[in-house]
């Protein structure tokens, strides 16, 4: 049975509204920047489409086409489709401290999230006599290790979120 016209109208309006949110910020001809450690540019505006190129954090890209939540971008011979949430219209600030490392130094969230407590923080817990909090935090870090980047990707796919909307 075909959905009633009113339902199609609602779907259409919702799609337009969704696209409008993104298009308000990103239009053809503007510049966006890759914000992930590695961002795949895809051959089609679909999350599981083959990759045509990879770009790293801060790569400047020109928007050539906007299709809903997807942008076709290019720069110096590199081009492809990217989900709008994976780029920013503001250049990521590469903050370097005296340690000299950029803020996006970790390759994956899972790796970074599962790191152990820093020695200085362990010492802080000792000085402040908050050993229970330390145990709790170590438990949380252990739990964080069990959620892999693949788990998050699968979650997005199952829930139809992010690129999978």
């Amino acid at each position, binding site marked *: 049975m075909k959905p009633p016209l009113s339902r199609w109208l609602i779907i259409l309006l919702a799609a337009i509204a969704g696209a409008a949110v993104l298009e308000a910020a990103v239009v053809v001809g503007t510049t966006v920047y890759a914000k992930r450690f590695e961002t795949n540019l895809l051959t089609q505006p679909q999350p599981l489409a083959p990759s045509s190129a990879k770009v790293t954090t801060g790569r400047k890209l020109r928007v050539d086409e906007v299709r809903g939540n997807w942008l076709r971008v290019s720069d110096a011979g590199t081009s492809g489709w990217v989900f709008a949430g994976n780029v920013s219209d503001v250049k990521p600030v590469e903050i370097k*401290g005296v340690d000299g490392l950029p803020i996006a130094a970790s390759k994956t969230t899972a790796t970074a999230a599962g790191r152990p407590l820093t020695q200085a923080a362990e010492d802080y817990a000792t000085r402040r006599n908050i050993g229970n909090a330390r145990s709790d935090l170590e438990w949380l870090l252990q739990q964080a290790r069990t959620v892999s980047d693949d788990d998050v990707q699968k979650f997005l796919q199952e829930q139809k979120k992010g690129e999978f909307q």
Partner: protein
Amino acid sequence: MKTLLLATLALGFVPAASAQFNFGKLSQGLDTLKDVGKVAKGAAKIGPEEEKVIGDSVALEIISRNGGLVHDEEITRRVNLVGRAVARYSARPDAAWRFGVLDSPAINAFSAPDGYVLLTRGLYDLADSDDALAAVLGHEIAHITKRHALSIVERGEFLSGVTNIASKQSGNVQQVQAQLKQFDLGIEKIISTLFEKGFDPQTEYEADREGRSLATTTGYAPDGLKNVLTALEKKGAGPQPIFSTHPPLKERIKRL
């Protein structure tokens, strides 16, 4: 509650006795602490390695002051999946995002540098849909990506009196203690903002807007946060404090 928090703060930040220090284990941490001092004095940004130390320490304080963590693997996995899904489209998608639930009936959420987001059991129970949870987590994620807590110390005088002390090289116990004391004061400054003063209203409104945008980009309902705040407003004042360090609910709802 605020009085209780103030009392806790007053008691909690009595300088630690030097006898508790484990100097043998301090050498690794001191490199970073010394560097934090240099960074702050030079008005440079706090870098990732310093942010880890500060984030861990602030997270420890948040947990310590809110009844510890809820040790429920299913709940923790849920908040980590929803939180990581939202954070994936933030300005720092590759940061070390970790989400947990504090064992407190109060209604509040906190963030600490380097990707720690902790919400209370009271708020978790209230945010009964993924849309609502994503909205709440999005707000806290925004505080981290905007470096709101770090700006407190970046703007201020974190460790300003103890810069460039070559404690590691000299092995001078007094200098080591001075560095640690200053570090602890820097953490106290952040904690005081989180638990007592709160961020200024504009900072909270910015986090509301950014969090809403993040949740929406991820595919969650754009009115998730507004719905949570409206439900809280309708619920009215109860025995538990509601976002005690945030601007009035009515104003936040109006701006969303």
